């Protein structure tokens, strides 16, 4: 550590002539391995009538410093610090001004690239408590903050705070102040614009009042997961009084699904939030959330709500999500969704109306749905799906009939299935059951090599479609291997399609186990419809 100071000193303890400093040090330097602070110091007053009375200004010129790990550091810093300090009966009265002219600072997690910011504050210091009577901070292009409060200097704990930011420019404030704090959230990579006003009140280190107002804020995720435009919000909160909060947006998008104009009102009471009803327009339908209740305990969120999806057009939905074009409308209802400390569970069943039939999801739970490796568990029951609609959606070859299915113990990791017991088969009952030549080929291809109607095909290939009595496939997935079965077992395999009437066809499967990724690849080949299915 090296310290240099060259000063001109005025003699005597009398007050120097006006405009003349008591001590003028133009060349000061504090230097060590991670610190280089050239500075000029000017002391205007040190004593007044024999009592301590400091009035000084320090100017840092091209200064740099850093802590050992480099997580609190500044470079090329030019700043002036004016300080006045005097002793009164039982306290030190102080007044200070910082003018940060230029230079960059990294104060983990914040990085400020350039200067132009000012802070002026005054207060007193007594009994280990730093009182700020008033502070005014001006951050260039971002906004101005007025604050007062008390800081316990033993542990740097804020005891009281009263702060107000009347007009915060979010476009400039977001990258510097909010982005580093939102690093692990969905809001880490977004473009934001608009203005906000903020008020914060802290008493005895407890938050008492908080009020956030958003004015015409646009926020759009750069990865296009979500966007909200013209967000306006009044979010008052106080420790003692319940408030109504309101939040609205003109339009938006969530995972490519357009969101319509929405207005949400809710009641907040200390650390809980309730709302009887929220309607979120999505596509041509809407999601109704009912009996919403959320609370935060010990740093974790707990909430529950009911949900009902008004019919949305599947054609529109599938186009937006770049899925195969589906027909019909989907609607759903969930009596109760509960979220507790990272796990989402549903009570009752979710009924989806799809392909003229129903898909009922029960026992649905999700862990870290927004994390990198989300997990989902559910049981799914499919009833009376219209095979005509289904097969025209996925270019599979036409099948007429109805399908039932049960997928039990489904476990998805990162949205990919790792475990389930699934059976799909033609629904019981009387209805036309017809299958096209192309669908037969495709089904045979799914059953794996060496399958199928090869023997019968020689003369049956003249027919475009066949009758069937029943059809079905089962797969028990464990460790990426699917144990397959059909509607009946035979000594050498299983029956996938059992013929009936004239012309009838029977499709056999012979592979009892199929690698799951291989099966998926086969389905993809078949539904892509580009290549002809291989039947050996």
């Amino acid at each position: 550590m090296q310290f240099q100071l060259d000063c001109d000193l005025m003699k005597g303890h009398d007050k120097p002539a006006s405009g003349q400093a008591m001590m003028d040090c133009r060349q000061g330097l504090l230097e060590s391995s991670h610190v280089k602070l050239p500075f000029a110091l000017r002391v205007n007053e040190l004593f007044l009538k024999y009592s301590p009375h400091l009035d000084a200004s320090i100017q840092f010129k091209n200064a740099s410093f850093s802590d050992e790990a480099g997580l609190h550091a500044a470079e090329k810093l030019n700043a002036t610090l004016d300080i006045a300090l005097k002793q009164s009966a039982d306290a030190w009265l102080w007044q200070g001004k910082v003018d940060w002219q230029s230079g960059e600072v990294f104060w983990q997690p914040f990085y400020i690239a350039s200067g132009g910011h000012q802070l002026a504050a005054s207060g007193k210091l007594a009994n280990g408590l730093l009182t700020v009577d008033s502070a005014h901070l001006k951050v260039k292009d971002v906004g101005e903050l007025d604050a007062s409060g008390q800081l316990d200097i033993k542990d740097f704990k804020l005891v009281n705070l009263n702060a107000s930011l009347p007009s915060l420019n979010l476009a400039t404030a977001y990258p510097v102040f909010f982005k580093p704090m939102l690093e692990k959230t969905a809001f880490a990579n977004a473009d934001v614009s608009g203005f906000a006003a903020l008020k914060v009140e802290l008493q005895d280190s407890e938050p008492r009042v908080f009020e956030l107002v958003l004015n015409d804020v646009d926020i759009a995720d750069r990865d296009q997961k979500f966007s909200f435009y013209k967000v306006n919000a009044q979010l008052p909160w106080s420790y003692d009084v319940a408030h109504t909060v309101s939040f609205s947006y003109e339009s938006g998008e969530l995972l490519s699904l357009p969101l319509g104009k929405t207005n949400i009102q809710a009641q907040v009471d200390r650390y809980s939030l309730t709302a009887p009803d929220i309607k979120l327009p999505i596509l041509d339908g809407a999601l109704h959330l009912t009996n919403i209740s959320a609370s935060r305990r010990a740093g974790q969120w707990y909430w529950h709500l009911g949900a009902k999806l008004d019919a949305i057009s599947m054609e529109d939905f599938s186009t937006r999500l770049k899925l195969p074009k589906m027909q019909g409308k989907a609607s759903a209802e969930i009596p109760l969704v509960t979220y507790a400390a990272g796990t989402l569970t549903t009570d009752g069943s979710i009924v989806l109306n799809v392909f003229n039939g129903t898909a009922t999801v029960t026992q649905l739970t999700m862990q870290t749905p927004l994390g990198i490796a989300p997990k989902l568990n559910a049981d799914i029951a499919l009833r009376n799906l219209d095979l005509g609609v289904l097969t025209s959606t996925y270019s599979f070859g036409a099948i007429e009939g109805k399908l039932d299915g049960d997928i039990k113990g489904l476990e998805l990791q990162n949205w990919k299935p790792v475990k389930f017991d699934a059976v799909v088969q033609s629904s019981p009952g009387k209805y036309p059951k017809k299958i096209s030549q192309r669908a037969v080929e495709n089904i045979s291809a799914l059953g794996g090599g060496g399958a199928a109607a090869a023997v019968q095909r020689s003369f049956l290939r003249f027919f475009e479609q066949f009758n069937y009595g029943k059809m079905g496939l089962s797969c028990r997935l464990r460790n990426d291997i699917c144990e397959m079965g059909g509607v009946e077992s035979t000594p050498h395999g299983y029956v996938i399609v059992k013929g009936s009437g004239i012309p009838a066809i029977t499709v056999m499967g012979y592979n009892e186990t199929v690698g799951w990724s291989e099966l998926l690849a086969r389905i993809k080949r078949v539904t892509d419809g580009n290549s002809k299915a291989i039947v050996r």
Partner: protein
Amino acid sequence: MKKILLGLVLLATLIGSQFVAAAADLEVNTPAISAIKNSMQARHAQLGAFYASGAIGLTKDGLIAVKDANAVPLAQRGALTGLVKDENADRSRLYKEIAVANGHPEWQAEIQSTFAGRWIDKAQSGWWVQGAGGWTQK
């Protein structure tokens, strides 16, 4: 005598840890594990230069840490600490998922320490690694 005893204890711990390593399939793959590995792989391209400059190093508990951010311009330090945080979150999740995929969630800590050794063995020369006595350069 003391030396022999110590030797025996060492041998026992070695066999013990060997046993866990042999029993646990560290290469097990599930969609969750491959998602985490992909995420780590994508990040490694950004971390490579920081390993080389000594800004970050491999810790003895199978994570990474900022060793000396002074090697990195101020403007990039926020990104650096963010990357380290994300990488450690992924690593912890990876150890947990491997333990779960082996059907033994309670093995997480042992899997983590086995990986710690592996990462350090595989570290390129010039990288900083943390041993019992602190940071050393390979």
